[in-house]
């Protein structure tokens, strides 16, 4: 048989060996991070939507709200900036890419390597975290452009971004759970529906006092209410450990629920094999 192939006759003695958890995590994360700018369609809407709502809500409600509930100090632009951040970061994940990996068989290729199983999911979340931090930046710049200022200074701004990013990360458990459970891109896309009750049955547009009693009751059980309160406190109230603590606790509770679902779904998928 003829061939134009020259096969190497000398090969190194390179051998596979188990790598550490952090190396596994970074290996998976690096690929996911590289993929982010290559799929602009996955994150560009997350830039447009918050900017749109930020401008529209201010245009519609600024005059109605300023001065009414909290006296002259109330600044609706500052009030809206955390909402814009939450809109930017909620639901951003690599879950659709994970579905693609599962359906194309690439996930199997990862599974038949000695990589630990947990980093296969956590590595994607590292990329998610970096993306949501990056998404916060233009939204904050927009806020600064329209006159929003941070009463807690630069450190407050950093914490503001961190709270937003942690919220985004906590929420990713839902789309990942759906991705791992169904391996269906349409099902993952429909996880966006979860965004609505979280994002609108709360103080995203007006302060708690403006809500009708029934909606106020719901908002009190919505973790985003406390996340928004904590972020807003960094803009207007100065350092308020109670508000920040409640925000972090709300993120922790939601994160515990969503990430537990994701881990169970991962375990279920591995058990299928």
């Amino acid at each position, binding site marked *: *048989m*003829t*061939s*134009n*192939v*020259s*096969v*190497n*006759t*000398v*090969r*190194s*003695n*390179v*051998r*596979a*060996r*188990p*790598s550490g958890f952090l*190396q*596994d995590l970074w*290996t998976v994360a*690096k*690929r996911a991070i*590289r*993929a982010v700018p*290559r*799929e602009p369609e996955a994150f560009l809407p997350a830039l447009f939507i918050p900017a749109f709502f930020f401008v529209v809500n201010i245009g519609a409600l600024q005059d109605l709200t300023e001065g009414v509930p909290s006296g002259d100090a109330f600044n609706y632009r500052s009030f809206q900036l955390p909402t814009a951040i939450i809109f930017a970061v909620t639901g951003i994940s690599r879950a659709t890419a994970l579905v693609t*990996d599962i359906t*194309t*068989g*690439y996930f*199997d*290729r*990862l*599974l*038949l*390597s*000695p*990589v630990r199983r947990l980093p296969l999911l956590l590595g994607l979340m590292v990329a998610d975290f970096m993306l949501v931090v990056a998404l916060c930046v233009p939204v904050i710049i927009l806020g600064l452009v329209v006159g929003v200022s941070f009463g807690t200074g630069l450190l407050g701004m950093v914490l503001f971004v961190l709270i937003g990013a942690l919220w985004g990360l906590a929420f990713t458990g839902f789309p990942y759970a759906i991705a791992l459970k169904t391996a269906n891109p349409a099902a993952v896309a429909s996880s966006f529906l979860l965004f609505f009750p979280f994002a609108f049955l709360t103080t995203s547009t007006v302060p708690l006092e403006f809500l009708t009693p029934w909606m106020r009751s719901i908002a009190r059980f919505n973790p985003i209410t406390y996340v928004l309160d904590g972020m807003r406190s960094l803009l207007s109230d100065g350092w308020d450990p109670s508000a920040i603590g409640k925000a972090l606790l709300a993120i922790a509770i939601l994160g515990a629920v969503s990430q537990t679902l994701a881990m169970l779904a991962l375990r279920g998928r591995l058990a299928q*094999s």
Partner: protein
Amino acid sequence: MTNVVIETNALERSFGEVKAVRGVDLAVRAGEIYGFLGPNGAGKSTVVKMLITLLRPTAGTATVLGHDVVDGASAIRLRIGAALQDASLDEKQSGREILRMQGALYGLTRKESDTRIEELSSLIEFDAIDRWIGTYSGGMRRRLDLAASLMHNPDLLFLDEPTTGLDPQSRVQVWNEVRALNSQFGTTIFLTTQYLEEADELADRVGIINDGKIVGEGAPEDLKRAIGADVLQIKVGDHDAAVAALEDVAVVDHVERGPRALLVSVTDGAAAVSSVVIALDSAGVIVEELTLRTPTLDDVFLELTGDRIEVSA
């Protein structure tokens, strides 16, 4: 004593009510190329997935390189490589990124990965290595997939239909690499295929699987010899008349209607030609073309299962 690297005993796998694999016994020796031949849906890929620890058996046992596929999965994964049926590669990564990541998954340093990439040059098109996989042809993907599965120098390589859908040139390239891996580096290769020619070309031994069961096993030449017959491939105008004419010819063992010709099994081809031609001529059947050939693995499969392998793209 021969070192057995894959051993299965009464291996089974069910999916709900469907039994995809029904009691498979295998013993693959170190250093051989074992061809696992069967039609689509025969259970080849399911067996492979159990052996590479992607799928748990529902009954029976399997050991790979001395480790149980359930309890010793981690140890197995370090020492095997696998290129599965569909070259599963991330389309938005470059060839180099995929290979380096593959190296990192197996604990290789960047330098070691780059060394391996150089060493696997026969499978990699270097002018395309920094392009996204999405721009690769089917053959390029398949060869890169094979290169990825070899990054960590596995002792045992599983190839699940490695050339399905490839053009002839790409197929030969993969065959050459498989042969080189086996002959120069002693890599044991477990190869599933639905191509008889591929099994014939590459495999030291062939296991024939049909409907989830092994129906035959041995060296290709032994299997073919075991049929004990040559085949006369006869092109005639009237198949019915020809079959009737050959019914009572003593030297004819079996007549089968092929898509374009009759396939007549005879014990001694050279001696039987004249008897067959005379019988056809006496019945007024015009012989348009007659070829004498030795049996193929397809004939072996027919003998063992009553069917021929239908190859799908």
